[in-house]
């Protein structure tokens, strides 16, 4: 029995999943793309408000501290004068070497932090959402019409590349579907999109005349803008994850079925990959390939471990992805 008898198991799972997802997010980071967008956004604002408050308090306290230090030094000086001690002319604070040193160190640390963060982020393009030659909506295809991802990205379970489908795959359906009748489509800027005109762009590329129902000229490939790019020194294999690992497309690509225009959901950094490899279980019992890992099988039998993560079968070693 739980304390909330009104919640079904499914709801609890959803809450847990939500909590896990929120925890994996960097604090204060933009949180779009999440299913519960509004609430998450509110949460982010809350934490943002708090840190602003803390920042202001810190700043005020720092100013107070500096003023107090100034007062202290002035009082000391007055006391010394009163007692008739010789005292060196005080150095103004902007010439005080200690202050300058502290400032430089602070500047170095803060500047260094941001420089390094910036450098690490070089070449990463989370949330990248370029304009594509055709306004192709994954939401319409994968969401509303429930087309399986692998229908178009058929080599995701065969090859390292998921493959952008060739135009002949589009034409399997679009020979019959020549106009868009679904809900209104909008670009990210809020501009309305004419779905039928976008389908016509496909026909133009592939050389199809919808009225005559035949190909009238040789096809031209569509030059899609690549969104997910890994560096050359990374070997990534889709089939490894989709076919062997049984990972859902959405794990890395986000709620693609809700995206009109696709953006890069994950930052595709090495830390992001490794984190997943540390926490994801392999199909240890189901896949006979893993039968050779005798010790791990024994450990499961003995109850020492419950699951086998990718890391435990060597999935975080350098040469699993870099060669």
């Amino acid at each position: 029995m739980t304390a909330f008898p009104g919640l079904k198991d499914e709801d609890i799972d959803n809450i847990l999943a939500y909590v896990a997802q929120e925890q994996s997010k960097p604090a204060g980071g933009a949180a779009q793309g999440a299913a519960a967008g509004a609430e998450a956004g509110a949460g982010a604002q809350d934490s943002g408000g708090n840190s602003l408050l803390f920042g202001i308090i810190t700043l005020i306290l720092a100013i107070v501290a500096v003023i107090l230090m100034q007062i202290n030094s002035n009082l000391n000086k007055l006391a010394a004068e009163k007692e008739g001690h010789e005292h060196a002319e005080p150095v103004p604070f902007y010439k005080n070497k200690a202050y300058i040193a502290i400032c430089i160190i602070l500047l170095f640390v803060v500047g260094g932090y941001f420089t390094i963060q910036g450098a690490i982020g070089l070449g990463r393009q989370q949330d990248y959402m370029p304009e594509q030659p055709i306004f192709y909506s994954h939401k319409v295809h994968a969401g509303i019409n429930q087309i399986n991802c692998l229908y178009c990205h058929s080599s995701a379970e065969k090859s390292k590349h998921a493959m952008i489908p060739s135009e002949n795959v589009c034409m399997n359906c679009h020979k019959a579907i020549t106009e868009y009748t679904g809900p209104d489509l909008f670009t990210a800027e809020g501009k309305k999109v004419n779905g039928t005109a976008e389908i016509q762009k496909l026909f133009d590329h592939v050389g199809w005349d919808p009225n005559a129902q035949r190909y009238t000229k040789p096809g031209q490939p569509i030059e899609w803008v690549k969104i997910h790019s890994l560096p050359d020194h990374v070997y990534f294999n889709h089939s490894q994850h989709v076919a062997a690992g049984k990972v859902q497309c959405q794990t890395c690509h986000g709620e693609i079925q809700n995206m009109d225009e696709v953006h890069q959901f994950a930052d595709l950094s090495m830390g992001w990959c490794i984190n997943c490899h540390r926490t994801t279980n392999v199909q240890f019992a189901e896949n006979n390939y893993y039968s050779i890992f005798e010790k791990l099988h024994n450990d499961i039998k003995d109850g020492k471990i419950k699951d086998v993560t990718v890391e435990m079968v060597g999935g975080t070693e350098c040469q699993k992805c870099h060669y």
Partner: protein
Amino acid sequence: MEQKKYWKGLEELHNTAAHKEAVKNEFREDLPFEESESLLNATTPRRDFLKYLGFTTAAATIAASCDIPVKKAIPYVNKPQDITPGVPNYYASAYAVDGEYVPLVVKTREGRPIKIEGNEMSAVTGGATTARVQATVLGLYDVARLRYPGINKGADKGDKLEDRVQELTFAELDKQVAAAIAGKPVVLLSSTIISPTTKKLIGEFLAKYPGSRHVTYDAVSYSGMLLANEASYGKRALPSYHFENAKVVVSLGADFLGTWLNPAEYSRQYGANRKINAKNPEMSKHFHFESMMSLTGANADERYTHRPSETGAVALALLAALGGGVTAPVIADARLKEGIAKAAKAIQANNGKTLVVSGSNDVNVQIIVNAINNLAGANGTTIDWAVTSNYRQGIDSDMAQLVNDMNAGSVGALLVYGANPAYDYFDAKKFADGIKKVGTSISFNDRYDETTQLCKYIVPDHHFLESWGDAEGRTGYYAFIQPTIAPLFKTRAFQSSLLSWSGNTTAWEDYLKNEWIAKLGSQEAWDKTLQDGVIEPQAGAALTGAAFAGDVAGAAAKISSAKKGGKMELVLYEKVAIGNGKEANNPWLQETPDPITRATWDNYACVSNTVAKTFRTELGDDYEIHAEKQVLKITAKGVTVELPLLIVPGIHPDVIAIAVGYGRGKKAFIGKAAGEVGANAYPFVSFNGQTFDYFVTEATAEKTGRQYPVGLTQTHNSYEGRPIIKETTLEEFIKNPKEVNHDREHLAHYGEDFRKDATLYPNHPYPGIKWGMSIDLNTCFGCAACVVACSAENNVGVVGKEQVVLAHEMHWLRIDRYFSGDENNPEVVFQPMLCQHCDNAPCENVCPVAATNHSSEGINQMAYNRCIGTRYCANNCPYKVRRFNWRDWNGADSFEGNLHDTGDMNDALTRMVLNPDVVVRSRGTMEKCSFCVQRLQDAKLAAKKAGRPMKDGEARTACQQACAADAIVFGNINDKDSRIYKVRNEEQQDRLFYVLEETHTLPSINYLAKIRNKDAAPVAAGAHGEEKAHH
């Protein structure tokens, strides 16, 4: 037991001062930029340094923080069903260049051939390859290939290809050619063609032009054998040899493991009898008689040298010793005489189980060899006359006749296909003069080579990876060639041209298909054939002999009256990688070190140390340390060449040996790798009225005083005398199999388990897979097929000669060649050396950034992008297998100034050969053998996707797959059913050793000790006595 001393060169044998110095400074290297005096001596170098630092940081920041480039992802319009991007397709094909017959499987990625493997369905080669076969995939992307058909404008039009050849369309060209050759007798000049359908087509084409003929000309000819076989057995053909049936192999200068006829086939057969079964140890015995040091000679159990002029005498003496009823000329050399007697004795003791082969191109010598084989019962046991080989068909006198006819003006039209006599004919000038008197000359060659430059019309043929074809290596053994890529350039199959000019409108592809469907019966059978790549008869047919009817007395008389040699003699040979020079413009092959000399990128005059001493009095034994070699002027039969002197221990003291295949024409025409490299040795060939002689009996060598650097890898990577090789004799091994490894017993001193007890480090667990490799020194012949295969598979950089001189070569796998014993008649051992993937790797401990570390599968991993290039690991590697990228060899960097281009390896066209699954390493990173981790990952993934454990043999390294003799076994040691487990724990425990095992690096690669089938070694005699006392 006293360790037998192994040496890579004389400098190591004598441990000279310069050798010590070189070993000490192996890793010392000056910074690779020019030292600027003004910078270092400036008054404020520190400020300058800061300025430069600031500038470069700012520049790098600006360069790096620019917008991320927008990348496009462009799918197919209509995806071919059998292409999945990222998944390789394999097509069967065959290497049939110049008569060699090696059925292949070609790996293509996204429509680009990137790797070649042997076709294991072939009974002839069984998946074996050679260095040259492995490298042909790079030949496809050769920048110097002709890109369009055209008409030659003449030699006075400058040195640019586009100025010399005017492009024509095929239609226009066909019109002009048809008009030019109409009604004239045509001569087709080609190297050996083993395609039956092409031959049929040639016949049809020549029939259209009455009086026409086909002349076959081989640059390195075997016509002596063909004619001798005709005289002995009535067949102008080569038999098929079966080295696997021979208990005794006697080679009279035939380099059958390196260059003789079809080395992939013979290496495999010969290797079968060099493997040792520990339960019943036996192996073939190999006698070798030669003038220079060949790869095959280096692998012989007993090797003897003679002068080239004595070749016939040696054959005759052997026949005489076997009771052949002939008298041989006197042989003065006592050692040689003894060797012949020994060989004769061994042959007699193994009648019916012997094979004698000869590399001589002299008819009389080959008749004697036939007589020996006949006496020894080889016909029908090791020589099969029912199935003949088509590997070489050229008849030298036909060629000589053709050149005479050309000069007489009686040749109407000359079509040159795959032959290059203007370069490799001994009297190239006469050929060049003759071609001017020929009505119309047409070349089908792939580049603007020496002969094509003289021809009027140029109709470049496809590369074989772009074309259709078939090949009949042995009678009834067919392999098929199919395109693996659409033609890169405006080239046309040679056969299409012939079809077009003989008025046949059938496409060549259809012609071939129709021909074979008629033979096979159906389209399905043809499809199956293309898939398999071979049609070969069922194995098990008995070998057939032939009745010998040669005129032994006549041949013996001619040999006895042959000209005696002068003070020095000269012999020509083919290098294993370069061959006759046709495929010389291949940077992989040029950079492959010669198995014997370990030299790259050049040819040179090989002489013995005795001869060399007369030229290098001032240098002594330090000569070999320095890349700069003395240049000799070598004169024979009125021809002079200047070549650097290289000392080759084991060469006959009165002989100079020079490799053919070098001294090609201009770089702009031949290619950047082969053009203007070395000197052409073909002019030393002579025509004796019947056949070409590849030796000169009278030669002189004199000093020029000049020096010339040679890129030798011999002195790189010194082991500083540490024992790394184990060998014994067969006799010894049978008597006491544990003896060869008896020093391993000392390891017991550390405790019961050397692995665990001899170290403070924790033991690595290997929960799933533990990769391991075993290399059999008995079946490694040093042919370097694995070296090229490794380069192809792993995008290993080509560095060029200047960088080889600086010891910057990048080969992940090298084959060390060690001499031992007598300096003049040394024994040779080849040891492939690659990353040993130590379980206690010394490199891992010293990396400051943990870029190299250990995997749970026992792989010593190298993360290139983590590497900051300190080179500590290379310094600490006892096997010297780590390679540092001093430059950007493969175009990995975006900074153009970093590029180092050798042989157009950075050209966009050449880069198509790169394996997309392996990253190209940038400048400043360390690299080394990865055990072909991309192949291992691929095999694991296939098993995972199928939900089953991995099978043994599914994951194979490139070197293992390329090896003709199966010297390399690789697999999962944790799998008790794997071959590698059985080799280590059941089959070969007595011979198994690890290099530098006592240092407790725990390598993942073991070697199997070499066993020689020879009498107790004379050098070992002393050590032997000691050994007995010791026990």
